[in-house]
């Protein structure tokens, strides 16, 4: 019986700490996380960071080029659009609208999808078969189609496009929750809880849900990047956010009218969407490989 511990301190990092360590080891993932944080700061503090209002027009400065071009001025960092609105301000507000609405969409889809998926995973027999196959079949309907139908029934608008994307995202969460619940239900620790007399609700909340958080985080990042692309695509097609609202896709489609005169009106909002999606994807990828490393060791 040793009187002292061999090591100075016995410290077992928690699962999340181990994930964070594995995540930190990848430089690309950390760079992506920093970029994503910048976008989140943009989204949260847009009114503090921007020099102008989102719809403030400057009649004397129509189509001013960005500041790094020859005849640009520093008072408009990214230049202005055809109505003299400051593009930098609009892009930052655009990040706020696009990222914010995408986030709400994903959270809603996750709540509905996880509850439906948990139900489907615990069912047996014919009911389970129906609950399994229907979402899979619905998953096959393209987002754009759902959006078109919703727009036709309720009219255009950001909120309606958010409903459409929520509907399109739900089946994925149902699918992943269901297959996870089904595999977990076969494991021994669930059987032991069952023998202790836990009912299905207790099984789900105490045993399965804690094991599901990681899958949810990873699926959430995938869904977030899909939601950002879809919301901006619908805004671009004039089916989602309508013109004065600074949504990145809508800003891009506004800029399309003056592509020849002012190509930065197309390039900069597009780059904002691209970097936003890229940072989400890089963070998601980093998280996934960090979790995989943790599970494998």
């Amino acid at each position, binding site marked *: 019986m040793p009187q002292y511990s061999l090591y100075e301190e016995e410290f077992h990092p928690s699962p999340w700490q181990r994930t964070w360590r594995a995540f930190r080891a990848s430089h*690309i993932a950390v760079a992506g996380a920093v970029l994503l944080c910048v976008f989140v700061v943009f989204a949260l503090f847009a009114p503090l960071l921007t020099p102008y209002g989102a719809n403030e027009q400057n009649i004397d400065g129509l189509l001013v080029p960005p500041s790094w071009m020859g005849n640009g001025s520093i008072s408009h960092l990214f230049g202005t659009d055809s109505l003299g609105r400051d593009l930098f301000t609009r892009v930052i507000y655009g990040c706020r609208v696009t990222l914010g609405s995408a986030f709400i969409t994903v959270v809603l889809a996750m709540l509905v999808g996880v509850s439906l998926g948990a139900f489907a995973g615990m069912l047996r027999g014919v009911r389970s078969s129906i609950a*399994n*196959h*229907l979402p*899979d*079949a619905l*998953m*096959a*309907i*393209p*987002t*754009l*189609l759902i959006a*078109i*139908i919703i*727009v*036709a*029934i309720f009219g255009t608008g950001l909120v309606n496009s958010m409903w459409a994307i929520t509907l399109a995202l739900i089946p994925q969460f149902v*699918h992943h929750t269901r*297959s996870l619940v089904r595999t977990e239900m076969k494991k021994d620790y669930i059987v032991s809880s069952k023998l202790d007399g836990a009912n299905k609700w207790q099984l789900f909340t105490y045993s399965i849900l804690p094991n599901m958080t990681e899958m949810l985080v990873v699926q959430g990042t995938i869904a977030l*990047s899909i939601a950002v*692309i879809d919301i*901006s*695509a619908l805004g*671009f*097609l*004039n*089916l989602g956010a309508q013109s004065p609202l600074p949504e990145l*896709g809508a800003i*891009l489609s506004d800029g*399309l009218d003056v*592509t*020849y005169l002012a*190509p930065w009106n*197309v390039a900069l909002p*597009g780059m904002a*969407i*691209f970097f936003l*999606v*890229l940072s989400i*994807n*890089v963070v998601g*990828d980093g998280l*996934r490989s960090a979790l995989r490393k943790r599970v494998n060791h």
Partner: protein
Amino acid sequence: MIRILARYSILFVLTLLVLAIMSFSLAYLFPGDVLENLTGIVPANDAQRQALERQFRLDQPYFVQFFFYLKNLFAGDWGYSFTSGIALRDEIGIAMPATIELATYSMMIALFIGIPLGYYAGMRCYSTSDYIINTSSITTYSFPVFWLALLLILVFSLQLDKAPLSGRISLLFDVEPVSGFILIDILLSDMQNKSLAFKDALSHLTLPTIAIGAVSTASMVRITRRSVIDARHQPYIAAAVSRGLSGWQIFFRHILRNALLPILPLMAIQITTLITNTMIVETLFSWPGIGNWLIQAIYQRDYPALRVGMLAVSTLVITLTITVDMFNRLIDPSREKYEHAAI
């Protein structure tokens, strides 16, 4: 095998039935008159309206109406467009093959470039070439497809003037639509300057195909790479190594086939993304496909067109998805129903 086939046929029929019910109920959900939404015919007077209502069984219960609607669907009587007045079946018959053609070529690019690249990256995982392939695939994957298409138009059509801006083929060529696929139609036709027309159609195809194909290729690379890495860590690979098989033997006999299995169900999911991307890119290139047609229909609030277009596109996607899923189940019976791999 027969059980699997029966299962999937039942699933297919039930899904189509649900879709048909949804499409029928859209006539009631859309704003405006039910009769006009259902048929696309605007009656001139009350007498004609009553005659039409009787003809389409609108005075009878919903159940009878729905069965009449189904009968009409099967008979090919899909109603008329508000805007053009042409039978919707004819319009979709022209638009749908154009979309399928574009999507097929993009999928080909994804398969013939994406899968080999993914195998290469997976076999050399965590090396420099793997990092380069993986990074570029994540970057390409993050491009919003409409912006990528815009950039291609800006660079290749407007700046360099290398590719045409819009459409399927130059108006100089008059191609008789037989199969609906422009390249096949040109080969089938007996026009004088076939090779010129073929070249022209190809140059129209290039940019949209690249725009759609790039995103599909990127996700295909990621899927394949992950699947190859997973296959390489299986115990049977270690067993093969210990038996003394060479690297090439292990690759061809064990990794190549086993890595392909998880890719197939993910391809089924890819089809949906592919069709969505095709529909978006079509609007940018004015490609006369179903996506462009549907978006024009929503701009003009052409409800009969939306109702049938929705049914047509979702039937296409679901047919493809269920076929791929069934195929996957047939070649891999050990797989539990509907289990998908991770990227």
